[in-house]
């Protein structure tokens, strides 16, 4: 069983690492997130050559990295086009790193399962009838543009790589610092990453606090207009 963990420095990452099977740990200390091709060149061939038994594939990847959105200008300060654009310049490198990595693994048809830490802050729920919508007063306040955009773009990047060989699952560690959530969430992530590729959990987003699932494409019939 091969496992890569991205994100090494936070207490949450350290707790996740404890629960993984002999992971190779990557973080800013040994990865330049602005250079995915360098990482691919150094680590993919090594991984391929280490596959000696069926249980060595798919590769299991857990991702808990900062997108950098906290260093971008606050949403209320986005009053000019350059500052607005700067949000996306800031968040792009880390998101692109994993987009590139999964893109290359898809190109090589290397099976991979990914569990990445995200948020459900900007996600939607769907109702078939207007009268089933939650009361307006529950949602009648603005969302934070910067935070929701960063997480939604992250999810787009991951979901766009889904294929016969690539399965992804986003997890929201909501209220991480409350009670004993760190330990509980870390164990759950370790359980989720080792689920079978055939499990229906994949290609969704899961809230570790509420147990709510976010899926895509109501009935699969929608196309890009």
């Amino acid at each position: 069983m091969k496992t890569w963990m991205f994100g090494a420095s936070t207490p949450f990452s350290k707790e996740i690492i404890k629960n993984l099977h002999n992971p190779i740990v990557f973080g800013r200390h040994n990865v330049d997130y602005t250079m995915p091709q360098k990482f691919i060149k150094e680590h993919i061939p090594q991984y391929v050559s280490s596959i000696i038994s069926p249980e060595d594939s798919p590769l299991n990847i857990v991702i808990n990295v900062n997108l950098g959105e906290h260093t971008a200008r606050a949403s209320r300060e986005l009053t000019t086009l350059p500052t607005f654009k700067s949000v996306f310049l800031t968040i792009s490198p880390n998101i692109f790193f994993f987009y590139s990595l999964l893109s290359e693994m898809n190109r090589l048809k290397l099976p991979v399962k990914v569990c990445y830490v995200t948020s459900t802050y900007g996600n939607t729920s769907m109702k078939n009838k207007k009268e089933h919508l939650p009361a307006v007063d529950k949602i009648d306040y603005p969302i934070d543009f910067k935070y929701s955009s960063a997480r939604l773009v992250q999810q787009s990047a991951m979901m766009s790589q889904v294929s016969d060989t690539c399965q992804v699952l986003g997890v929201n560690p909501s209220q991480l610092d409350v009670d004993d959530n760190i330990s509980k969430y870390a164990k759950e992530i370790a359980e989720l990453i080792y689920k079978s590729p055939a499990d229906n959990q994949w290609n969704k987003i899961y809230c570790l606090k509420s147990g709510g699932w976010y899926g895509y494409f109501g009935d699969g019939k929608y196309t890009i207009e």
Partner: protein
Amino acid sequence: MADTKTWMFGTTSDFSKEIIKNLDNPVCFGRHNVDYNDPDKFIKEHVVDNTPVNMVINVNLNNNNMLPTDSIQTLPGYKKYFMTITTNIFFFFRLLDEMNTLKIPVRVCYVTSTFANTRWYLGEEKMRPNIYVNNHKIEKDHVFKYSSARLIQQSAMNSNISETCRVVGVNPAELEDGDVMTNYALKISEMVNKPVDDEQWNRIYCLKGGMWYSQPMWED
């Protein structure tokens, strides 16, 4: 409705023309008379009093921006993609922000997509089939570009919700000439005139399927 202005953004597509037919004496804006790079110029010229505004937006986000298909395979290309789509999105983000500052009532109906929106369900239904398998064999870069553009657009609009600003996104799924386009355009014109306390506001609506998407932010 003399006490309300109607602004239509987007004038050239057949769909825009059909929407315009159904609006009440709209002022039409498009690339011929608006520089989307300069929202402050537009604000200075057009946001001149406190008259409530009904706004319909059907503008291209440039997510297919004539860049080669492999353009987001490098970090500079990836960043360039965001630089391309954010101009039109920022225009409306800034316009609504300013209208909020001035407390000018505004109701916005904007054309978007539900392509990347999620549906929510509780654990016992987790076993629903895993259906996100790119049935249509759409190229992955295109999936990323399209879904990201629409989600950023929706974030920009939803981030301006306030006591005076209501927004609703509409997805004209499987838009085609004829009755479909006529019906969608009529529906949009009805929606933008709904009272501000209508449950439709601050949601995204699929004009084909009749589904509503709202943001369950209680989880954070």
